[in-house]
């Protein structure tokens, strides 16, 4: 996960990248909602913060698209939580989005270097 190419406020994300980040953190295994947000925060050294108001609708959208599956389970603190895992369609989507993102990133980088 490289650094985002431009500075941004702590709670803001480039539109569309949230899906990519969620797909990516779920690649290593199922997580529940809070854990996804936490993971993204930790991995970005707290630069990227995912607000619950956008996280859960995004998860819903990915459920609708069939990229994720959700199962209810019990957390370490004995609370009922829902954990999300990637479906095969989700894995494929991750590859596509990653490739797309890298393409765009490379293009922007080369413009920035030459300009």
């Amino acid at each position, binding site marked *: 996960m490289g650094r985002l190419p431009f500075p941004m406020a702590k*709670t803001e994300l480039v539109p569309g990248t949230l899906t990519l980040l969620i797909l990516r953190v779920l690649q290593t295994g199922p997580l*529940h*909602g*809070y854990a996804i*947000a936490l993971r993204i925060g930790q991995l970005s050294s707290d630069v990227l*913060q995912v*607000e*619950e*108001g*956008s*996280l*859960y*609708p995004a998860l*819903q*959208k990915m*459920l*609708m*698209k*069939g990229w994720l599956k959700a199962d209810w389970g019990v957390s370490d603190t004995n*609370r*009922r*939580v*829902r954990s999300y895992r990637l479906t095969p369609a989700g894995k494929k989507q991750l590859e596509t989005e990653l490739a797309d993102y890298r393409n765009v990133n490379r293009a922007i980088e080369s413009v920035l270097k030459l300009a």
Partner: protein
Amino acid sequence: MSQLLRRIWYRVNRRRIEREMAEEMAYHRELIPEQNRLGSDWRAIETTREVWGWGWLDRLTQDLRYGTRLLLRSPGFTLTAMLVLGLGIGVPVTVFRQVAAELHATTAPDPATLVSLSRRAPGMRSTVMSYPELTFYAANAQSFRQVIGISQTYQATFESGETVRLQFVTPNYFQEFGLAVSAPLGESALVSESLLQHRPDVVGQTIRLNGRPVRVAGVVPRTPRLRADVWMAFERQPYVIEGSSVLTDWSATLDGYARLRTGVSSAAAEQETHALGSALHQMHPKDVPADAYLEARPILQFDPASSEFQVAATASGMVMLLLVAACANLGILVLARGVAREREIRTRMALGAGRRRVVRQLFTESILLAAVSGVTALALSSIALKAIELRSDAGTVPSGAPGWLSIGATAILAMVAATVFGLPAAVRLTSLVPAGGRMRSVFLGAQVAASCLLLVISSLMVSSVQRLRHVDAGFDYRQLLYVSPGLKAHGYNGTSAQAYFDQLHAVVARAPGVESASIVWLAPWGNSHSGAAWQGHQLANNHVDAQFLDTMGIPVIRGRNFRVGERRIAIVTQATARTLWPGEDPLGKILPWDTEGTTVIGVVRDVATTAIGGANPLEFYLPIATGEFPDSMLLVRTSGTPKELLHTLEGAARGLDDRLQPAGRALSDDYDRELSKITQALTVVSFLGAVAVLLSAIGLAGLAGYTVVQRTREFGLRMALGARAAQIVRAILSPMFRPIAVGFVCGVAGGSAAAKILRSGMAGIGETGFSPLSYVAVLLLFGIVVALAVLAPARRALQISPAKALQHE
């Protein structure tokens, strides 16, 4: 696909899913530091609904719920709107249902390939054919896949005494005309459903028809086209009708139709019959004229120049105008109501509702209104059709529950109406630009124009019919009757038929009340016509004896009447003389198409004897010849009541030959039937006019009310400052004046044009010309309507108390 299933799954389990998400988010919040707890559950849940693609449904339900509540809260407006639009949609839907049922009942399957056949030869046109001719063309014409023959109807005695109508047809008739009969014709007979109602047991039985045993094989379904009770094949005619020579007789008696082979045009088929006609003339030079051929005319012709098409188009245009008037009317009402709701609309927009959202909400209300009106319209049309059914004996009225087609048509009309009246109003009301009143004027002008147009048409039509009732038919038809003994069906030849008629004439002349009697070939105002076509003019003729003019009471203007035994002479009407020899003396002229040198010996007053009410009767009369007697009938003038003499006449005709089934008829019956058809059409037109006036009144009252509400403060102030009542009323009327005037002029001009087209298609109404009285009546009536409509709102305006007006916003 699976995505759609997941969406539906979401919709079904939405409550549970939203609850679960709220639970998840609550847990999430507990885990994060206090200062980071931003946003609300509701916002996230709403976003989620959008994500799953159901937001529109939520908004729609919301709008519908809101709209329903509003409509219920103002029942006066809702009922008025339902009535206005219910009428506006109901009338076209009623017409649509009636026409659809009629088309369904009267058109044969695949009408494009079905042609009706007429016999043609130079100077001759006859719509009927003979059976030998029919079989000849059926066997030889390659263009025709099927040739269908239908006889006239004969009276026949059913079992012991009941009279039924018997028709002979070729066996392919039922299939080609789309009549689903329960058994093939063959040697036996088929009966109508109505006969089956009195005699439910006849199918499969052997009955007696004219005393001959005939097996009944099946039933013919009821359709309005059918005129008979019993059908049999032509081959069986000599068996049931004693002495019938139809199979070998070359004189014409039946209607011919043909099915064109795939890919063959009617013109090509006609071309082929030229060669066949010549061959037929070679074989039967006495019976078939030289250069005879068949004219093949498609039964269904959409010829935009034909008067039927124009009448139909004008009539449907009129009906749609009612819808236009209703829409414009409702547009005014919705606008007027919107003004009262301006504060609500502004508040909603100030609270952040987008203009599109508010327009959508207002439009949803209109759709709701259109939907309930559509239901009202269907109910009204069902009631109207029921009423029509009870009043008329026609079997085509589609009463009962509306079919899917009419429900669909109603839905489409309602949607169109909602778009026309609702959308512009919604856009106008949400506009931040101050109301310019232009939309109101457009609605008002359109409505006044449509209403005036309908009003002018109905007024013109009604005055035409008033005139028709008092029109001079040219002869005293009320004292005339005729009896048709049907000699030909019983094998009479010319000589024997002439002898029969001489006898009948002698017997009838002695009967009490008989003033005069004449032997004529075709019944006056009858269904059979004969004639000639010359230079684009269709002329009608009849073959008559020397007593015809006396019996009819038609005066000879120039020349003289026929004398017994004369040949190759003609008597023409003045109209015929004017048309054929303008500015010349017609006496001694030869009929231009005639090859035998038929000379005009007399001119008679213009009297339409072949069709009712023709103003310019192009007719000519020829002396009746021996060959025509078997088809002829006896025309009688009585000093008494024709109806009473009918029985005597039929008895006299049967008395000379008891095999005959003579049919008598009073001429006034034909006239009354024709008149009642026109009267029925006019009732409909007047009804449209009345509805249009009602709509106008509602619309104007709505607009006046709107003006008063909008200008309450101004009126209150003006009254406080001493304005007179007349000034206030003028202030209400002045913005309406221009659209009313423009609409009125457009409507009246359009109305007279439309009435002209309609009249051209109605036999008997003819050209009655300009009638200033109708226009004055319309103007007056409309003035009264405006005055009445404005009365209540004006009173309200005059009662505005200045103190209240100042509080009013």
